[in-house]
């Protein structure tokens, strides 16, 4: 084999392996995030912004309460928004713990009116029910729970849902009875891999 042919073979083998030739990569197999509580309004909220489908004139049958939040991942990991950086952010575990905010011992919080709950990413605000569900809950035996857990194990790559380092999330709760205001404590686990193609700077 002559040298040009060998060099061509080497280049072909290198490119066939995929990925940049000159790179730096950080991988965190287990990254766990606990976010501060998100406040949910009571089921009787009069704010259309808290209705799952604000286009409806009256939010009834079944009532559905929603909140939208945007988590600034770039604030935690600035590399997310650097040029030449690609990343994989895979959700491996998630739990939204909904707990009533009433503190009166004589009237403990009752979340028994919650029929179901879902946490979505990639939601189009103009399309009701759009996006991908990453965690869900359906009411079971306890008629008067004081807290419920909306859990999931989606193993979902969140990178396509991140824009400018921010991940929009929407939580929707369907109720069939009066529900008090409550807090949503959010725990999530991720697999993170950030790759910098530093050869592109040359």
């Amino acid at each position, binding site marked *: 084999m002559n*040298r040009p042919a060998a060099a061509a073979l*080497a280049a072909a*083998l290198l490119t066939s392996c995929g990925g940049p*030739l000159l790179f*730096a990569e950080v991988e965190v*197999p287990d*990254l766990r995030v606990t*976010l501060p509580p998100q406040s949910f309004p009571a089921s009787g909220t009069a704010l259309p912004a808290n209705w799952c489908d604000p286009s409806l004139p009256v939010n009834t049958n079944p009532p559905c309460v929603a909140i939208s939040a945007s988590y600034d991942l770039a604030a935690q990991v600035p590399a997310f928004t650097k040029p030449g950086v690609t990343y994989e952010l895979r959700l491996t575990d998630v739990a939204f713990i909904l707990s009533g905010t009433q503190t009166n011992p004589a009237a403990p919080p009752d979340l028994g009116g919650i029929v179901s709950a879902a946490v979505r990413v990639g939601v189009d605000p103009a399309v009701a029910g759009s996006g991908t569900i990453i965690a869900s809950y359906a009411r079971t035996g306890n008629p008067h729970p004081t807290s419920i857990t909306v859990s999931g194990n989606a193993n979902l790559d969140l990178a396509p849902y991140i824009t400018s380092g921010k991940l929009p999330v929407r939580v929707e709760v369907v109720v069939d009875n009066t529900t008090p205001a409550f807090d949503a404590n959010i725990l999530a686990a991720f697999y993170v891999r950030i790759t910098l193609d530093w050869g592109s700077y040359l």
Partner: protein
Amino acid sequence: MRLAALAAALALASPSVYAEDPAAPSLSEAPASSAPAAVPGAPEVTPAARPPARASGSSRWGLLLDAGLPQGLAASATFRPVPSVRFFAGPAWNYVGFGVQGGVSVVPWHFAVTPVLTAEAGRYFGADVSFIAKNGQGVPPELRPLLADMTYTYGAIHAGIELGSQSGLTFSIDAGLAYLLLESKGTVTTTDTGSGSTVVFKDPRVRGTLPSVKLGVHYWF
């Protein structure tokens, strides 16, 4: 895998022709006048009884001292079973820790200026590499405590030249591509007092490729 593929291709590209080191004439070419005079009563030394290590006119064993990036400083014992192939291994030091390293070189022919193709690998134990998290180098500063005790593994392929005698002292310069893997075991918890969020990192790894260069001094006994 990428490095192994390139190393294999480079090895295939190297000529299989081997020429004797002109600076070290073979025994068969040595002038008769240089042969030791026979001593009466001494046992006769036949060519077949001579050490095979000298069959090609140079030693099989040597000592290599080199310094480079990302290998660090290394001292290696070298062995060449055949003139065109040599193996080396020994301890290494890179300012932040000690390790071991080794590799194989292909020397397609021997002249005063000799090309050398090398594939090598090494591993450092318990090195402090937290400096790579300084000044926004792409590694989150939160990872710094985890980088304080990391294992450091590398592989590299080099092409270079050696100047000098293949049966004595040579100086070498090599350049190529290196692959690095930094691994840490442990957990770090950080809390953002502003937002109240808590982030826990566990067992991070850092890897990448970068150009590699190495200078060496090689002595064949």
